[in-house]
């Protein structure tokens, strides 16, 4: 019976390919850049002009700061 691949199998397959082929790093770079741009846009729109005040209120709300 054919084995169904799980998340960890994909981690292994990807890491093996990556160690042989640096071109796969380009995909990773795209993911990182997209994540940072999306996060930046989200929080700038959420907190507006007084960024720090809004950010600290949010961070308290999620328990990241006291």
């Amino acid at each position, binding site marked *: 019976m054919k084995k169904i691949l799980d998340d960890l199998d994909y981690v292994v397959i990807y*890491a093996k390919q990556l*160690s042989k082929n640096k071109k796969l790093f380009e995909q990773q770079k795209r993911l990182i850049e997209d994540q940072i741009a999306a996060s930046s846009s989200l929080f700038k729109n959420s907190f507006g002009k007084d960024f720090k005040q809004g950010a600290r209120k949010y961070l308290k709300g999620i328990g990241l700061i006291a």
Partner: protein
Amino acid sequence: MEGYKLEGDIITINRELTSLDLFVRDFLDILKRYSDYLVVSGFVSISTGRTRGTEDVDIIFPIIKKDKFALLFEDLQKNGFWCYQNDDAEAAYEYIKNMQSIRFARTDEMFPNIEFIPFNEKKKAKYFEYSHPQKIKIKDFEFKIPPIEFEILFKEIVLAGKKDIADALHLRTFFSKILKKEKFKEYEPIIKEELK
């Protein structure tokens, strides 16, 4: 072309710099004026190719005195970083003094952030990894991480979450040609002490 090469004691990753790398590099460029450091945890896996999102970059440093910390804090603020906990160096140092981490992000940004984690000699595992750094280079960005075998075991034994197990597996697979069994044996008892 291969994903990395080991030359002397430096592992060079064959890829372009990302915005995340530049964020860490800018922070380290300031930090290095005041203290030594070690980049640990998620960024070790991500900088070596693990494809997953991240919000924070963990950096450990040996606890420093208040006056030196104040200079570092002001330098970071002057160069475009803000501290989640407080804008005042003295108030932020209260966390450091109590061995609690604080976080920094770029001005008017929330993520990514640096989790800036103090330690002292009582923290055996942290002290060990800090004292045995592995150099990593991506283009002109060189920084220090724990020995890869140490990082793998720490993720597998101490952190042990789903994300950590996947990170460890990535490191085991990606660096399979250069990992040393004797180092795993040497590091395991040090890491298991963390659980006691």
